[in-house]
């Protein structure tokens, strides 16, 4: 039966064989992994070719009228379990994706912007950073154990943090100007209550994001500090996010 997986990936099976492979795939995760590899091989044959220019607006117009289906990845949806637990998890992931979709889109789109070579030289470091960030956040979103903490910021704005394993993705928007020679500084709050600096936030239109990896923290906080930042907070945090 495994012998048919390459043919399945190539859409080269007749109906009877295809149904047999479908049954194998439903029962055997290792077969699904093998199929994924063959599909990657088949996909490698596709030569990227610019579609006719008119197609772009046709597709994007149509997309405005077509609703998305809301369900989990077809082959990895958790098996229905007794009680509502399974459904609740899927629901949570979907909700999380919706809520965080815009933030990841912004980061990923910034990384994906096409620029002429000369300018690319100057921005390539920044783009690499953004790419890395987008990839990491997308991974964090996929982690079923990740959590999102959210709170209003004293003085205006809202902050949230996505926590997955030891990684934290901080996001804030609507922050007022911190004042002359002042900056917002981000802190990681440790399990023992100690804080360590995660750097000064770069504010753009009142919004900022920051990815902190291997933080070993249980929460984050923001305080207003002198422009260069402080070693430890010197003012009361304007927002604290902790589990």
């Amino acid at each position, binding site marked *: 039966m495994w012998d048919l997986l390459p043919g399945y990936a190539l859409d080269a099976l*007749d109906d009877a064989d295809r149904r047999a492979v479908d049954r194998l795939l439903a029962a055997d995760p290792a077969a699904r992994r093998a199929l994924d*590899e063959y599909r*990657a091989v088949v996909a490698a044959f596709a030569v990227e070719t610019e579609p006719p220019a008119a197609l772009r607006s046709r597709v994007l117009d149509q997309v405005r009228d077509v609703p998305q289906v809301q369900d*989990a990845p077809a082959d990895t949806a958790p098996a229905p379990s007794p009680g509502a637990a399974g459904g609740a998890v899927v629901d949570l992931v979907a909700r999380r994706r919706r809520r965080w979709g815009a933030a990841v889109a912004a*980061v990923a789109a910034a*990384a994906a912007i096409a620029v002429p070579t000369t300018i690319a030289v100057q921005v390539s470091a920044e783009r690499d950073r*953004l790419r890395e960030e987008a990839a990491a956040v997308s991974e964090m979103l996929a982690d079923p154990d990740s959590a999102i903490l959210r709170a209003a910021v004293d003085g205006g704005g809202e902050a949230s943090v996505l926590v997955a394993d030891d990684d934290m993705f901080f996001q804030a928007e609507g922050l007022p100007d911190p004042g002359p020679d002042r900056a917002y500084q981000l802190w990681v709050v440790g399990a023992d209550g100690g804080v360590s600096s995660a750097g000064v936030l770069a504010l753009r239109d009142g919004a900022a994001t920051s990815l902190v990896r291997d933080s070993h923290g249980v929460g984050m906080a923001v305080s207003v500090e002198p422009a260069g930042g402080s070693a430890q907070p010197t003012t009361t945090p304007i927002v604290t996010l902790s589990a």
Partner: protein
Amino acid sequence: MGQTEAVASPPARTSADAVDALLVACVGGVPESFAPVYDALGPVAYGASLGVLRDPDHAAEVTQEVMVEVWQTASRFDPARGSARTWVATLARRRAVDRVRSEQAHRDRDQRDTDLRSHERARDVVVEDVERRLEGSAVRRCLDGLTSTQREAVVVAYYGGLTYREVAERLDAALPTVKSRIRDGLSRLRDCLGVHRG
């Protein structure tokens, strides 16, 4: 800054991870969030369709269907199972193959269709053409590692959108022989391309 000569890489190819993130991000998003997804993955859908259909108009129609499907079913994309590129190429190829087969069924019903022969000839797959088309790609290099019979079977199945049975007829070979050539060919390509997922 100013070290222009240090960077010889071509401009702006969106990294695979960033494309995956774009696709995940458009789930539950506004329709506008799909624009960068289209820009990043439209060429894959069109290229995969064109490979099977050859006709630019048909390939454009299939690409439109596929990209709308990508938007609709973006929540089913699972980055753990493969890249967004592979997912879109798989969807596009399946639709293109479906179209070839339904056209074929249509022609088969009308035995007197005078277009039949010229169509068939236009769809004949020439290995040399394929190799030219893939010039410079990783697949092209890896195809050299296959035996000539493996290469022929894989290429005919891929570009012809054919079933095993049809490949066997086309190559005048036994069905089990064709199955094992394609299996061994794709396995070698898999090892050469390094797509093992653990």
